């Protein structure tokens, strides 16, 4: 029993590290990208500074990255991990492909949340003499905040799933544990424990995300 606790404890910690940092980095990459996708879109879709070429190029890149199978993306990105961290194996190294895989997803989630903001409200902000930056940071983002929180929640949950997959090719964490002990050594108890921890993690994130989003809405 104590062995299971130790194994699952270490793996959970590794998963938390992977998910936390890849969430942070995928947001750092995806947030600006999502904002850019929204503001550069055509005017009738709510773009505040339509830029046709930029919008199409970014849109294509995001779509290609999103349709890439994650496992293949990881393998392709091993050299990048080595370049950035000096190694391509381990929990830290896994954060690089995880972040890059999640960034396009984050970009689309942010873009669609921002596009939901009522055009009339944006028009009002513009008539009052807002600069584009003011519209983005003082209008679009605050107005879209509940949807943005839901989007980030979804991203974290996706990253928990991705990190389990990443673990299997050398990242450690709960996915790795489940494969090594549960699948290769037929330790059903370890497998079960790993799965339960993942389920609990997902559930906790979902509940917290919903709470924050709901409390934001209730204050309006």
């Amino acid at each position: 029993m104590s062995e299971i606790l130790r194994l699952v404890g270490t793996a959970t910690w590794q998963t938390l590290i992977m998910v936390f940092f890849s969430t942070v980095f995928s947001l750092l990459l995806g947030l600006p990208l999502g904002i850019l996708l929204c503001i550069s879109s055509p005017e009738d879709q709510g773009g505040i500074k339509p830029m046709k070429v930029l919008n199409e190029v970014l849109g294509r890149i995001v779509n290609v990255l999103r349709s890439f199978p994650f496992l293949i993306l990881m393998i392709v990105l091993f050299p990048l991990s080595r370049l950035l961290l000096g190694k391509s194996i381990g929990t830290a190294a896994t954060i690089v492909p995880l972040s890059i895989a999640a960034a396009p997803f984050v970009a689309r989630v942010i873009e669609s949340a921002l596009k939901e903001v009522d055009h009339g409200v944006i028009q009002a902000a513009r008539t009052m003499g807002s600069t584009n930056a003011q519209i983005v940071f003082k209008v679009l983002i605050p107005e879209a905040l509940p949807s943005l929180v839901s989007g980030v929640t979804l991203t974290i949950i996706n990253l928990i799933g991705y990190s389990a997959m990443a673990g299997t090719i050398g990242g450690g964490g709960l996915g790795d544990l489940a494969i090594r002990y549960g699948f290769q050594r037929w330790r059903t108890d370890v497998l079960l424990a790993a799965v339960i921890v993942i389920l609990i993690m997902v559930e906790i994130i979902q509940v917290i995300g919903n709470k924050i989003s709901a409390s934001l809405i209730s204050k309006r």
Partner: protein
Amino acid sequence: MRIALKNLVKNYGSLHAVSDISLEIPQNRIFGIIGKSGAGKSTLVRMMSLLEKPDAGSVWFDDRRVDQLEKNELIAQRRKIGMIFQNFNLFSSRTAGMNVAYPLEICGISKQEIDAKVKSLMEIVGLGDRIDAPISTLSGGQKQRVAIARALANEPEILFCDEATSALDPQTTRAILDLIKSLQKKMNLTVVMITHQMEVVRDSCNFVAVLDEGRVVEQGAVTEIFSNPRSSVTKDFLAHLMSVASTEDAEAEKLVRWSSKGGRYTLRFRGGMTDTPVLSRLGRDLPVEVNIRAGGVQHVEGEEIGTIVCDISGVEENRKAAVKYLQEQGIVVEEADNE
């Protein structure tokens, strides 16, 4: 501030939303622009409020051309314009007071100054006790009051109202119009009032332009347009006003309809002549009978405008003579095309 529009044109693809509109909007007045849905009112006001550039023509504020400003000048100019909308367009992420603070924030005004200003503006619009209220807790009329406070925060000289009362019930509409009228006087505003409701024009405007299919079909002082409408669009608006009057708004309009049928002739006369027994003389001097279907008096800018909807029966020749007689008395007579 005076606004002049010169030969404005705006097309959306092959659709001519605004075709060659020229208007002179005098300062410190309320200028109505009325038209049916799709007439091009919003497009016109978007060009006046510098949200969209015209395809051709120019927009002038006093003697300054404003439709081709560079980015920074454009933003500076927009900060001197106030605008309110049918759907209020308030920020749901902000409280009522924070909505009013927004235009001040983006100009980099200090927090203290903003707080004081927000407080006084909210008091002016009658919501001094709702500064911290979330927007969703406000009624439609209260939302529009917040929007008005927000529009006037930077002390603009121009206020554009695009269907500002169209989402409100008749009572709230009158309250909002009264507020706009009093603020117009207090702050020396030039107000452009876009609407599709003739009662809004009657209750608030000094001048009006009637828009149809992207063109101005008629314009002038409101008393003039009410007593002597020329275009068929204007007549339709006035006729609609009367039918509305007979139902939901009867008391305020002081118009009564006692027969739902008939009413081929609409007679309009200005207050000064309501003493003359025109109709009884008509019945006495000519072999016709006048059957009144609806009638009443409306107050337009302090002047009374009488309206009577009636049928005149008799042989055609005599009916024509009757119309002629009425016209000689200074009454405007409109004849419906079909019986």
